[in-house]
């Protein structure tokens, strides 16, 4: 019934809780027939009952002009009302917390509500008799007519009265909570499934992104051109050749998927992600020489800021592939990160700007950007955005805005 790991005394996740209205939330946010649920429900409806009982007693007191008697009637009436609304749920809570097997627990909970109905009926009867006795003493009212089932009309009337009473008793004792109680395990199952789906979609989009980055890395053009460059440097500039191989190794290490299974959702820091981009840009500078200039501006205080992996390198690769490589002559790629104020919130803004070939009007097929959008959506819902527009100096400006998370130690 309950999630094994979930304490009955703690509020349920919103999609598992039974009630939605704000005041009902006060107790419906807890598992049905748990102690907090039962106490809170009793407190809400109990206070209404006490209010009703007190005003009944007060009107009695006024009528017979006797304060003490008014108090007596108030107490009796309030107490019987309290038993009516409290007994069933509290008894049921006792069974729910007993830790007995589910089947026994269910029987107990159903029995507790029925038991609460009987108790409530007795209490009501007692309070009624007490009040009738007082009225008779004042010569007011008379004994109830004896139950005479002589004709069909009185039989129907009594049947209607009784069923009305039963409905009131059933509702007051918590019978309406039965469906929510019995469907709780189904709601838990749905909740689990939803969480599972969310987790899987995040993992999937991350895997997709990793695949795109991977494809860009082992993209034959990237790999063979880099190898060709290294090969030519071996004779002309051995030291630079060694540096290039180091940069390639570092870059592959950062972007190739780890062979061991990764659990959960990978997290990284802005500093790490900037370093990965820097090694990639170094590599490209070896190949393109004077044609590529790169600027990296990361304030030291942002280095430890949490930042999802692979997003930034995808954007930088795009800038190289679609901006720098197709454009004759010198181009520049600028990476910046800064904190921007957006209303009362601090947001992290990361930009990749190039002055390369620029956006071409029409249709585009790149899956990299689509994957980044999916990543952002699954990680941050609508709190993050990616915008691409024409850069101030031609080229493309990719602007990524994320919620600012506190730096990890």
């Amino acid at each position: 019934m309950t999630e094994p790991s979930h304490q009955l005394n703690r509020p349920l996740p919103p999609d598992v809780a039974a009630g939605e209205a704000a005041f009902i939330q006060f107790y419906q946010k807890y598992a049905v027939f748990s102690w907090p649920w039962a106490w809170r429900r009793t407190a809400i409806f109990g206070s209404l009952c006490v209010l009703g009982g007190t005003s009944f007693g007060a009107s009695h007191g006024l009528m017979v002009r006797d304060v003490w008697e008014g108090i007596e009637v108030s107490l009796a009436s309030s107490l019987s009302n309290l038993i009516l609304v409290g007994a069933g749920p509290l008894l049921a809570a006792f069974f729910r917390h007993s830790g007995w097997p589910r089947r026994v627990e269910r029987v107990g909970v159903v029995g507790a509500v029925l038991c609460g109905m009987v108790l409530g009926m007795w209490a009501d009867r007692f309070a009624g008799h007490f009040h009738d006795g007082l009225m008779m003493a004042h010569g007011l009212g008379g004994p109830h007519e004896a139950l005479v089932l002589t004709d069909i009309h009185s039989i129907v009337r009594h049947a209607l009265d009784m069923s009305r009473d039963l409905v009131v008793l059933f509702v007051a004792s918590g019978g309406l909570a039965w469906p929510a109680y019995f469907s709780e395990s189904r709601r838990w199952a749905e909740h689990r499934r939803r969480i599972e789906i969310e987790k899987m979609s995040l993992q999937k989009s991350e895997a997709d992104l990793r695949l795109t980055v991977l494809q860009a890395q082992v993209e034959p053009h990237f790999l063979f051109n880099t190898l060709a460059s290294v090969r030519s440097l071996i004779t002309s500039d051995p030291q630079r050749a060694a540096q290039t191989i180091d940069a390639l190794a570092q870059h592959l290490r950062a972007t190739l998927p780890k062979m061991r299974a990764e659990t959960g959702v990978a997290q990284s820091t802005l500093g790490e992600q900037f370093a990965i981009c820097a090694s990639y840009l170094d590599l490209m500078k070896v190949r393109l020489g004077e044609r590529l200039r790169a600027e990296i501006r990361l304030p030291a205080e942002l280095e430890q800021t949490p930042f999802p992996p692979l997003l930034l390198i995808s954007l930088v690769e795009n800038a190289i592939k679609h901006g720098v490589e197709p454009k004759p002559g010198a181009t520049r790629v600028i990476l910046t990160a800064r904190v921007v104020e957006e209303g009362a919130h601090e947001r992290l803004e990361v930009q990749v700007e190039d002055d390369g070939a620029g956006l071409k009007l029409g249709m585009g097929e790149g899956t990299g950007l689509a994957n980044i959008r999916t990543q952002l959506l699954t990680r941050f819902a609508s709190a993050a955005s990616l915008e691409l527009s024409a850069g101030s100096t031609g080229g493309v400006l990719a602007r990524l805005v994320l919620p600012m998370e506190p730096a990890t130690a």
Partner: protein
Amino acid sequence: MTRPTAIIAEDELPQRQELRALLAELWPELNVVAECEDGLTALEALEQHRPQVALLDIRMPGVSGLEVARAAGTQCHVIFVTAYEEYALRAFDEGAVDYLLKPVARERLSLAIARARSRLNSGSQVDMAAIIDMVQARLAAGGKQGIKWITASVGNVVKMFSIDEVLFFQAQDKYTRVVTADSEGNIRTPLKELTAALDSEIFWQVHRSVIVRVGAIRAVEKAEDGKLQLTVRGRDDILPVSSTFQHRFRGM
């Protein structure tokens, strides 16, 4: 006998230098008259020097090596240098289109030089145009992935819209409107081209001038003149539905 002339077009400096060094070693009498770092410079060098041999990288900034070869026509013997496009070149007669894979291996370059020499001596000429057409068709077929983005001009700026955001396309004069819930832009791509590229399950052409996202349609109704028209969620635009496309809404 005059020395044969050649141009090298390769955008990456270290590779260009190495190619030149290898050529100097393996074909010492070859006179490299120009080294070009992009396609445009290669075209100019071709015009200016009229070389007998051209070593062309396929992927270059500006103008691709294939385009340069097309411009060369029968004028010179072309050797493509490529990191990857061999899958598009492999099927062709090696005598007609010679290609080197990066990193360029010395033995392979020797072979290419031997072939080029014999071709220059025999004076036979090949028209590359037909071959280049086929190579380009193969390259284009290899890269098909389906539309993900629409890059459109919004006022003075250019913005990218995810195809998932687009509600409808509408042809207007020489532009095509690209409309999302909170923005819109213009592209020059004609509707006909879009229809061919878009997923026909998701986008329906409902009029000669309108392609609409099916999932975004709010209502289809009859206008006063009896013609169908539709509205989409999140926009006030009223879009025409032509009679030829009305069958798509039967039973909706």
